[in-house]
């Protein structure tokens, strides 16, 4: 039924030191490390949010992609009902390993609270929610690989049952300098149809 169709409003991919928005490259850097790349991207897009530098790499990755998709979407004069549905493979393992290293030596046992708070993958959803004042539905799933069918179904259920007006969803994976973010905004109106095959194609671009 036509009224049940959902659409992709906009999408963003971050990988290999490059950021694309709706298929167009909008930022590229020669930086070797994600820390340098993410800092340069933050500066390039004039994001004024000092807490960014306290985030772990998974949160920085998710935050940057969400920022580019939501900055023209959020109306600060009202409550924005945008659900967040993310998934990845490595959960928060990158930060978990860093934290483990800080507590593995009993003679040098100084666990960092600032690292510990990022030892859950859904913290990146919290960072985005705080930045954009979202009090919406949110979930973070762990899969072996990007599961376009699950993500498509989940976003459609949220929209069809009116749990959200829009859904920001996708893949945010970071482990040991290997990373990829593919986030997209799904709505009840738009030009690009939201279905498993199109999501799959955009993910693999």
């Amino acid at each position, binding site marked *: 039924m036509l009224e049940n169709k959902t659409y992709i409003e906009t999408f963003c991919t971050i990988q290999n030191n490059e950021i694309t928005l709706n298929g167009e490259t909008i930022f590229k850097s020669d930086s070797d490390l994600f820390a340098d790349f993410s800092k340069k991207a933050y500066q390039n897009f004039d994001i004024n949010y000092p807490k*960014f530098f306290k985030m772990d790499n998974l949160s920085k990755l998710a935050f940057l992609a969400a920022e580019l998709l939501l900055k023209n979407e959020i109306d600060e004069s009202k409550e924005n009902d945008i659900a967040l549905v993310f998934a990845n493979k490595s959960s928060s393992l990158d930060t978990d390993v860093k934290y483990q290293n800080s507590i593995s030596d009993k003679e040098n046992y100084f666990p*960092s*609270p*600032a690292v510990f708070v990022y030892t859950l993958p859904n913290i990146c959803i919290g960072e985005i929610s705080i930045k954009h004042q979202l009090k919406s539905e949110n979930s973070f799933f762990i899969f072996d690989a990007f599961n376009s069918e699950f993500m498509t179904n989940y976003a459609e259920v949220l929209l069809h049952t009116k749990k959200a007006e829009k859904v920001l969803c996708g893949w945010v994976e970071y482990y040991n300098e290997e990373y990829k973010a593919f986030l997209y905004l799904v709505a009840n109106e738009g030009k690009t149809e939201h279905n498993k095959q199109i999501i799959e194609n955009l993910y693999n671009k």
Partner: protein
Amino acid sequence: MEALKQELKAKIIEVLNLEDINVADVKDDDALFGDGLGLDSIDALELIVMLDKDYGIKLVDPKEGKNIFQSIETMAAYITANRTK
């Protein structure tokens, strides 16, 4: 004491990832929390770990932190009086 204050400013900026702040920006009597440097509760915990790790001071009463972490001035005075390394 002056050297310790400069050391603390540099350490706080590094440990708390205060990217947009330089040592010269921090005055000795600036409030570390609230309207000053704008540190939060996780930062407070990091400062407690820093006292232990770098100066051998274990804070057993968290209420003490409120007075100790008022400013660089108060931190430096407390460390000078209580450091074990």
